[in-house]
């Protein structure tokens, strides 16, 4: 028999555990605002830095892709969350439905953000919009306008690329189709688009543009700001080539307009720092913050009078679909079910 292992090791374990617990204590001091964010840290950090500089209020962030609303719900009255930032109207509305938000009433916010981008009761506030557009090959696509409906047309057979039909961005667009045309027509349309796919839906929005660049397909669906991200990517200059190979077509500009979704913010029901949280929300609706959204993230500001960046404008004029956001939120479930029903994610073979 070799050495004996001594039970004192458990003492060391306990010590290590407490060290870790002490290492990261909840941020509850005053002069702070705690943010749960579904938006990536790099996207919001410049805004938060500007906010801290202006107000002296420190910001603490937790970023996660899923489950933050459930976390706030489970934490209950003791939740440290002051605000939650997210993309997608579904998520904003979902937070309200879960009962984890409180209404924000601020004259500053009401003056800055048009009513169509706010919850009527103030439970969520939109901050930016982004359009779901068509990226088309400069070489192989002649036309300069397009409609979503047209994507089901046979002339696109084997020429369309898209990410998963169950991604929030896809679901938002499909939900707007349900709102405009009803479930039955949308189902037919989805089946038509599926048949026109060049490959099985996978990858992200940039990967689809790369596929156009490589010749795998001719058009793809994508959010507008990825164009800016690719055009300015210094670390991966090949992405500039991808961007150069495509043009953006804003669908349905001649009639109802292009589908847009929002990013926004809610105040948590049990926010420990409601005053600071309100200051942050007001700041995010201000000219300064809206400009950062426009210039650094290539999103469309919602505050009237704040212009989109020159780069974004260079992609073309946008006419946003005026469909109320609540309609999109209400039809998400139907849209998601239809994606399953037509086997959209199984790709063109089925």
């Amino acid at each position, binding site marked *: 028999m070799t050495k004996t292992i001594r039970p004192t090791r458990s003492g060391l374990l306990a010590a290590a555990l407490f060290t870790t617990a002490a290492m990261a204590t909840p941020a509850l001091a005053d002069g702070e605002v705690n943010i749960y964010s579904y938006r990536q840290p790099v996207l919001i950090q410049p805004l938060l830095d500007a906010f801290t500089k202006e107000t002296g209020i420190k910001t603490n962030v937790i970023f996660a892709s899923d489950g933050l609303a459930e976390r706030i719900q489970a934490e209950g009255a*003791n939740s440290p969350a002051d605000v939650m930032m997210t993309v997608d109207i579904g998520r904003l509305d979902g937070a309200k439905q879960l009962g984890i938000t409180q209404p924000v009433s601020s004259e500053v916010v009401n003056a800055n953000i048009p009513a169509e981008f706010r919850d009527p009761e103030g439970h969520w506030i939109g901050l930016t919009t982004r359009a779901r557009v068509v990226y088309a090959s400069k070489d192989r696509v002649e036309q300069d306008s397009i409609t979503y409906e047209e994507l089901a047309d046979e002339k696109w057979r084997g020429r369309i690329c898209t990410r998963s039909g169950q991604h929030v961005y896809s679901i938002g667009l499909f939900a707007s189709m349900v709102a405009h045309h009803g479930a039955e027509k949308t189902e037919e349309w989805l089946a038509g688009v599926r048949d026109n796919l060049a490959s099985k839906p996978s990858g992200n929005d940039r990967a689809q543009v790369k596929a156009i660049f490589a010749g795998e397909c001719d058009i793809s669906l994508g959010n507008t700001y990825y164009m800016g991200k690719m055009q300015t990517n210094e670390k991966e200059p090949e992405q500039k080539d991808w961007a150069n190979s495509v043009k953006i077509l804003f669908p349905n500009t001649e009639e109802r307009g292009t589908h847009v979704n929002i990013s926004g913010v809610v105040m948590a029901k049990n926010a420990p720092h409601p005053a600071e949280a309100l200051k942050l929300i007001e700041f995010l609706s201000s000219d300064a913050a809206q400009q950062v959204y426009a210039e650094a993230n290539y999103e469309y500001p919602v505050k009237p009078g704040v212009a989109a960046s020159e780069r974004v404008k260079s992609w073309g004029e946008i006419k946003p679909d005026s469909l109320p956001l609540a309609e999109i939120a209400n039809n998400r479930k139907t849209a998601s079910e239809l994606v399953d029903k037509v086997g959209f994610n199984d790709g063109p073979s089925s």
Partner: protein
Amino acid sequence: MSSIVSSPTFDAAAAVRPVSAMTRSDRVLLAIGFLMAALTLMPILALVVIAVQPTGEVWTHLLGTVLPSSLVTTGLLMLGVGAITLIVGVGTAWLVTMCRFPGRALFDWALLIPLAVPTYIIAYTYVEILDYTGPVQGALRALFGFKTSRDYWFPEIRSLGGAIFVMGFVLYPYVYLTTRASFLLQSACALDVSRTLGAGPMRLFFVVALPLARPAIVVGLSLALMECLNDIGAVTFFGVNTMTFSVYDTWIHRSSLAGAAQLACGMLAIVFLLLWAERYARRKQRFHITTSRYLALPSYQLTGPRAGLAILACALPVLLGFVLPAALLVDYASRRLDELFDPALMAAVGNSLVLSITAALLTVAIGILLTYAQRIQHNPATQLFGRVASIGYAIPGTVLAVGILIPLAAFDNFIDGFSRSVFGVGTGLLMLGSGAALIYAYMVRFLAVAHGQIEGGFGKVTPHLDMAARTLGRNSVRTLFEVHLPLIRPILLTAVLLAFVDCMKELPATILLRPFNFETLATTVYNAASREAFAEGAVPALVIVLVGLAPAVLLAWSSAQSFRGRKSARG
């Protein structure tokens, strides 16, 4: 000597249990064991509670649409990955433990490396390399003048086949590691007897070594398959619509956490049944080693073409599971080497290390307690408890993270309420939002990893030793520390290593339960991945690999040392 005792009249566990009443130390151990099992069970119970809520038409929709096909897809994925991990894992384990060929010592640990890289990263790199837009097909098009994908045939990497291929070569180390440890522990006597009786290498492998290693192989295989089930990242890249997808879509897009929990619990029930069936099939078999003499294992000296084949068989998995994808990561990372010295990255390394080491040690400690409790109190209740407590691994990570959230928050709020009513001062959230919550989450997720290993190790220790130790006046605690743990040290090291590497890679629970302003290596990689800028995560991804590699190399070296030491001392 090792033996498979098939006689139904011999119940080893019954022999362990003293006829007299349990001693005090027995009871303390059992109580702690039960408490730990209960703690790790809480999140699964929370999911069950969520699952019993009404869900409306969720199931009608699922049954009518994706469920049948996603069941088939999931089944095929598990079959394929199971086949690859079995063949590669067991085959290479046999080669490096039983054969001598050039490079054997290198492969001994190199075969472990794919384990250090998160599966979704490997999946991403393979899509980059092999899909239509990647360098391989690009070169083919340039070479033969093809214009579009319709001009030629190339296997589609974004497919079920692609997922099986990639996950098989990433997950085989689970099987390799457990099987290798088992081969090393197989007393040479059994093999010598077989050889004396005229068994050739093939018969020796299939008739003696393989059946003896069965429990270990099953542990490794079930880990690999559960990893298949809980994965969402890799299958997303491949566009393979598994059950996990349905769980996720039901929760996120159809706002039915209850429906998602029902699906997850259903998957869990299937895993549980499979594991139970395997155990039932070998219920009468025992795999104890009755000697602590480790003679030098018989080995086959391979030369010429045979050595070449052995080298190829060992090199291929390392190439496919690590070298190829790592080359792409190194390419990305080389463009941003300045990030290596980013203080934020250093902080992430520190956080990852502290959390992973603490969680790995605690997880293994709990695994030991649970297994030992099962050993001293061998009844269906303890068996079931041990089994159920460690299947959380099969639940999709994000869903389990929500399950973990609920008992944690309930505990914190209870303490806060209690403190308020008694002392008039609240405590706020104690666990949630602290490192303790993450360590708890890791323990829940990876107890399966440690528990399976440790159970296999304890299974090799014959109950005669327990009885001898007790006769010599050792209580159960001292028997554990003076007899069992020293005997299964190599397996304990394996368990710690596996748990450590898994904690380093853990993402869904870390990201949801972490404190404010807190990054680990895995979350840093994810920050880049989530904004569709994978290349920016290359540096932290490589750091995960390096930090994961260090203990792998250490482990291989130390286990080789310990066996060498014993061999030279005895033989």
